[in-house]
């Protein structure tokens, strides 16, 4: 049990530290002031309760009362929760179960996922403007490069598979094959018609 407490403690400290850096978090917390939201991952089957107040978020591993809103979801759905437009879709295909106000879920998801943190600003107070700008600039460049490289790698891998090793057909081949199939389909249906004509 103390392990749960440790996990809750770390989670709580992490979230609140990030919220301290985010200027808009206070406003978002105010919208949910005084609500208790239970979240349970289907894979773990261990509920966590988020007590939201205008001061901070408290994470509890046990709460004996009834939460204002209880969410059960798959681990994968956690990532999609960011996108409000997908919520209904998630509920429909059973990845997300909500017991309570759906609007609360949206606000809660927003509270946890959409953090507007100006790292450059916070960093500048520690290491100075110049260095902060350089660091953030290079970090952004690195991210861009990594993104580019990973895209390139994906494309190259696709080409190796389709063109060099011939493990999978290329897009044109697939299209040609599909055309051939539909041609045969047409011929077969024509043949069927003729046969049925003769058998009468």
């Amino acid at each position, binding site marked *: 049990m*103390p392990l749960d*407490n*440790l996990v*809750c403690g770390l989670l709580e400290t992490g979230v609140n530290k990030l919220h301290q850096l985010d200027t808009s978090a206070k406003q978002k917390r105010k919208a949910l002031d*005084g609500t208790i939201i239970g979240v349970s991952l289907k894979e773990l089957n261990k509920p966590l309760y988020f*007590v939201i107040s205008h001061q901070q978020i*408290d994470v*509890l591993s*046990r709460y004996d009362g009834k939460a204002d809103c209880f969410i059960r979801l798959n681990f994968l759905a956690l990532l999609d929760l960011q996108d409000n437009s997908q919520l209904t879709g998630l509920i429909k295909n059973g990845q997300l179960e909500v017991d309570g106000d759906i609007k609360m879920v949206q606000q809660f998801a927003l509270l946890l996922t959409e953090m507007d943190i100006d790292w450059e600003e916070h960093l500048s107070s520690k290491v100075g403007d110049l260095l902060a700008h350089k660091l953030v600039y290079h970090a952004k460049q690195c991210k861009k490069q990594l993104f580019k490289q990973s895209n390139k790698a994906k494309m190259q891998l696709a080409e190796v598979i389709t063109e060099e090793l011939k493990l999978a057909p290329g897009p044109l081949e697939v299209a040609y094959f599909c055309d051939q199939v539909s041609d045969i389909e047409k011929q077969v249906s024509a043949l069927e018609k003729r046969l049925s004509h003769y058998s009468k």
Partner: protein
Amino acid sequence: MSEKQENTTHFGFKTVEEDKKVELVADVFHSVAAKYDVMNDVLSMGIHRVWKRFTIDCSGIRKGQKVLDLAGGTGDLTAKFSRIVGQEGHVVLADINDSMLKVGRSKLRDLGIEGNVEYVQANAEELPFPDNHFDLVTIAFGLRNVTDKDKALASIYRVLKPGGRLLVLEFSKPIYKPVSKFYDFYSFNILPKLGKLIANDSESYQYLAESIRMHPDQETLKQMMADVGFEGTEFFNLSAGIVALHRGYKY
């Protein structure tokens, strides 16, 4: 109970007159109040936060309930309870020591906690609250310093609502020998030195170590709770029994 007849009690390993103990304990806490939180983190290596979290998990506290955080010191538990019970609920932070209470009050106000928290200077033996008033009473690292523990437990029992519960978080007896050895070494050799280094007060921390040894062990405290009327009493050993959480219900 022979101590009682002679009107003496223990203050750490020393024996003092009963009416002196309150003053002596007060001196200790006047002296450590300012550095209390820092010292807690250093001495327990931050583990006291996990113990307190476990206490909150065992409290079964809900929105709108009334809580008494006895010997609440600098208000760690009060802060959490205040947020959980919400605006309809009510939390009373009580401590016998006004220095600790002042530190607690200014800390909680800085955190923006107000509205549902009250601060009361009170003696645990004579609680100034009506009968059947609280849903939950907690006393974290405080019972040890109370002169007459039975009287304090009875007083707590009185102010609890039927169905309410008492949580006592307190140092106890380690359940494993090696842990006990290390723990003794730590508390008599390292702890007072750290106290000297950080709070410039080794005696207070010497007292801390001694008072822990004089505190009743898990089973004794459980029996003491049952004796004043608590039902369903149980305890959980934390960190191999260095700390134990006792729980009892009033029905």
